[in-house]
């Protein structure tokens, strides 16, 4: 009986010590202003990686941006982007690195050099040309009927009258 009492006393004492230690620890944490601990995010985050990846295309698959490409190779390239961002590389440096490694075709936006300039110059030129043509056609369509009428008249002013034609010819000969 005494043994049982001794054991229960020991257990109670142990429990009290444990609770006191926990309370002390909690108090210390609150005092130090510790923030709640969340699950570790990969560094840099997926959003940061995808910000660069969406400016690049998969070098193997056809026309698939790197941020949505599901292949293993693309996952490896995204990891490479993560490594480069972690090393402090800028978006431009990463894009240049990818272009150097895999060619310009991986860039979503062709670099402004050489024949690539045509991509930037031709569309606005064609657009402006088209707009000018459209404007000129519309202007002709809106011209008053009275102004357009003379053009519809026959080339010769004699209206098919043989007498007038003769007069015209004689006048010409006179000149």
């Amino acid at each position: 009986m005494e043994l049982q009492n001794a054991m229960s006393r020991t257990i109670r004492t142990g429990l009290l010590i444990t609770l006191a230690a926990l309370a002390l620890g909690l108090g210390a944490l609150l005092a130090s202003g510790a923030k709640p601990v969340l699950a570790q995010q990969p560094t840099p985050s997926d959003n940061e990686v995808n910000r660069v990846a969406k400016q690049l295309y998969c070098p193997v698959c056809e026309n698939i941006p790197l941020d949505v490409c599901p292949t293993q190779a693309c996952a490896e390239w995204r990891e490479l982007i993560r490594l480069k961002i972690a090393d402090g590389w800028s978006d431009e440096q990463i894009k240049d690195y990818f272009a150097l490694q895999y060619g310009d075709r991986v860039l979503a936006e062709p670099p402004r050099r050489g024949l690539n300039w045509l991509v930037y110059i031709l569309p606005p030129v064609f657009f402006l040309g088209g707009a000018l043509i459209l404007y000129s056609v519309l202007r002709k369509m809106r011209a008053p009927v009275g102004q357009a009428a003379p053009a519809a008249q026959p080339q010769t002013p004699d209206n098919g009258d043989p007498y007038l034609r003769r007069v015209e010819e004689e006048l010409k000969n006179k000149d």
Partner: protein
Amino acid sequence: MDNLTTENAPAAPRRLHPAVILTAFALLLGFLALIAWGLNRSMSGPIRTGDTVPAIQLVTFDGKMINTQDYAGKVIVLNFWASWCKPCEQEAAELEEAFQIFKDSGDVVFLGLAYVDTEPKSLEYLQKFGVTYPNGPDLRTTVSQMFRIRGVPETYVIDTQGKLAYAQIGPFESTAQIVSIIQPLIRK
């Protein structure tokens, strides 16, 4: 009567200045020539068996510059691979074995080109399969475009005359197969 001939005469249609017409034609011709050049470039076929292979430059992963011109008179085995390519793993060990067989003869050069791969993964792959012959990235995919490869693995064997002797599309089946392709080329 003069009025009859002058006032009622239809207005002559406005004509464009010849310089404008010429410029427009020149631009159109230039544009067409550009398209033709691009098409011709994209339609030009791959290097075929018997064709002379242009000089290939590569920088290995350990920074060594390699130019195939320096290997004139030797058989060159050029293997395209990638760490993300499962079939490449099937032949990696066989290629290394074949390299070990010919290494001391000095007649055969093995070169590996990592096709659109990341350097860390490439190095992991080389270590995993114990590849010891020179390997490097195919920068800007220049060499793979030269051969117009359709995928990986692909291996091209260049003979002692610098001509393409054999093209293996897909993985080799065995070391013996690789040796049987290279051996006759050395004897030539």
